[in-house]
């Protein structure tokens, strides 16, 4: 099976959706520009025309409302944001309007719209180009929230999101765009909701999302060297959340470490711990642990960013705690010559 990058998989997902359904339209600041949204929209305007793949004013809030009206009247819009940090200028249309539209009007209308947001990291993205606010959206009934990790899931979940009759927040981590993986050609969907066992294991459950799945898989490799067989779960969908798979795994392993790309307090990791403690309390052999951002904004300087972002070693260290193994400073040591403000070359896939 062929391998393509995550960014190419997104572009292919758009091509398939645009080709199959004339109601699908793409909007976003820079969607047709020469950089092609990190290669995810390159060539789409040339192929499908400026009426269906269009640039827009620098009006995130207004345009988020515009796509809602367009969806009510029969289009299936995807609104693209190069950084999540700009998309949150439109919390009213997303959370207060789109999420409630079907419910508050008693089912009179549907809201088939996708809000696609990219989360930045590295090379000094700093406090305002790298926020991971997935838990904000996951908190809102009426939204669906997905964070695909693999190129396969990126394409399949994107098509599923576009074909869904509900508002879907589609979150991409910038450090996944270059990663390669097996991606089927043509049309297919990955259902919104089910999580995925990225690696089966018996001793500890590592629940991760988005880019942290890559770190969790690396952690699992290193844990194997210690004789620890970790199971890695890729959440993929935050709302709905696959509590069933989380609980099955925790009941089997009795140990849980959650790795989020965001902050701990009131974040997705807190929710996963709540699921485990409410549903599998008796199975837990040790207190669960979380690997999240430090509780401060993301700094810009490479030296501070290196200290900020959790890595696979932090997951290994957390697993040691749940197993009662002695800590080892080597887990979190930064190998000489490694630049932490660029994607880890070990994570190019295939996943």
């Amino acid at each position, binding site marked *: 099976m062929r391998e393509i990058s995550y960014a190419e998989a997104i572009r292919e997902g758009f091509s398939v959706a645009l080709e199959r359904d004339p109601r699908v339209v793409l909007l976003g600041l820079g969607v047709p520009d020469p950089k092609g949204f990190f290669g995810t929209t390159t060539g789409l305007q040339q192929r499908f025309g400026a009426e269906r793949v269009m640039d827009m004013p620098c009006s995130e*809030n207004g*345009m988020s409302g515009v796509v809602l009206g*367009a969806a009510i009247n029969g289009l299936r819009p995807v609104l693209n944001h190069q950084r999540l940090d700009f998309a949150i200028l439109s919390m009213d249309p997303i959370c207060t309007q789109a999420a409630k539209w079907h*419910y508050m009007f008693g089912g009179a209308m*549907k809201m088939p719209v996708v809000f696609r947001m990219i989360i930045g990291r590295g090379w000094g993205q700093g406090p305002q180009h790298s926020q991971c606010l997935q838990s904000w959206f996951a908190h809102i009934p009426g939204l669906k929230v997905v964070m695909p990790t693999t190129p396969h899931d990126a394409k399949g979940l994107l098509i599923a999101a576009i074909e869904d*009759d509900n508002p879907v927040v589609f979150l991409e981590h910038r450090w996944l765009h270059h990663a390669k993986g097996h991606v089927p050609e043509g049309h297919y969907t990955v259902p919104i909701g089910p999580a995925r066992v990225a690696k089966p294991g018996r001793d500890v459950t590592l629940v991760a999302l988005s880019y942290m799945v890559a770190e969790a898989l690396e952690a699992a490799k290193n844990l194997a060297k210690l004789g620890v067989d970790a199971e890695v779960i890729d959440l993929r969908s935050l709302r709905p959340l696959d509590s069933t798979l989380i609980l099955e795994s925790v009941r089997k392993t009795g140990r849980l470490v959650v790795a989020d790309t965001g902050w701990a307090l009131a974040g997705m990791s807190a929710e996963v711990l709540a699921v485990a403690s409410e549903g599998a309390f008796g199975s837990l052999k040790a207190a669960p642990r979380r690997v999240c951002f430090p509780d401060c904004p993301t700094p810009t300087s490479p030296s501070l960013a290196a200290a900020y972002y959790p890595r696979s070693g932090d997951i290994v260290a957390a697993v040691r705690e749940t197993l009662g193994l002695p800590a080892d400073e080597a887990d979190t040591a930064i190998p000489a010559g490694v630049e932490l403000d660029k994607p880890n070359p070990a994570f190019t896939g295939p996943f």
Partner: protein
Amino acid sequence: MTASPETSTFPSQIGQRLLESMVRIRLVEEAIATGYAEQQMRCPVHLSIGQEGVAAGVGAALRPDDQVMSGHRSHAHYLAKGGDLNAMIAEIYGKETGCCRGRGGSMHLVDLKAGFVGAVPIVGSTIPIAVGLSFADKQLKRDRVTVAFLGEAATEEGVFHESVNFAALHQLPVIFLCENNLYSVYSPLSVRQPAGQAVYKTAAGHGIRAEQADGNDAVAVYSLMCDAVRQARSGSGPVFLEFMTYRWREHCGPAFDNHIGYRTEAEYLTWRERDPVEALERRLRAEGCFDEAALVDFKRRTSAEINGAFSAAKQAPFPDAAGLMDHLYA
């Protein structure tokens, strides 16, 4: 294509219709005000009494398939567009037979059959959605027109300017319909916008046609609207219309509140003299085309219709709690 009201001429054909539309709105709103003390309408209500001229003029200038969106004070807009009265009253009573099955209340009216696509109380939030309706209509080559009702305070929201800019950029068939009633809750224009800066001139800054007129003159509203609808429908781009008007009662609720100190009784009485219903009645009388008997009969029939709507709403069942999660996802 539906027969277009844009070709109607005043006053012989339209005067009585505008009068009846305003009278019906006022009778409905007064019935809500009267019944509100019973505490069975358990949601906030923002009454349109005093502002009926704008709604009536706009509603009469639109085709049934044209679309309208609105904000918190939407009863008049809904009724003037042809929204179902029974479903509206039942919704205010929180009943299963309401237009939102009791999920919305007074601030969330909807009647898709009548082209009333929805109202929400977050100031300015429906403006871009209305623009999006017209964007899709243009993309899908429909000849509908959309009206975004907004209060003058909504022009202080950033999303208003974003919406007008996009509509102007794509020459969308949308009309921004501003009812300027001088107050945002209790805050007067003087603490919200610079002195001497007319709202419609701010809108004109976006490069679209913008005009202002007396909102208590239903005929003036109607005739400006007909012109705006012609422009929008012909593909010549959006229009902003500002109509000066005044709400007689409190911002939210059934009472009068001129005594609490944010506006004067004298100011209210000045506007009370400019009652849009009485003004049109006088004009029709002066022009010799006022049919008093017909109006008396209309009021009698409308009162019966309203009584029927209220008793049906009161008797209708509340939504079953088992349906709490209905419509969360499509």
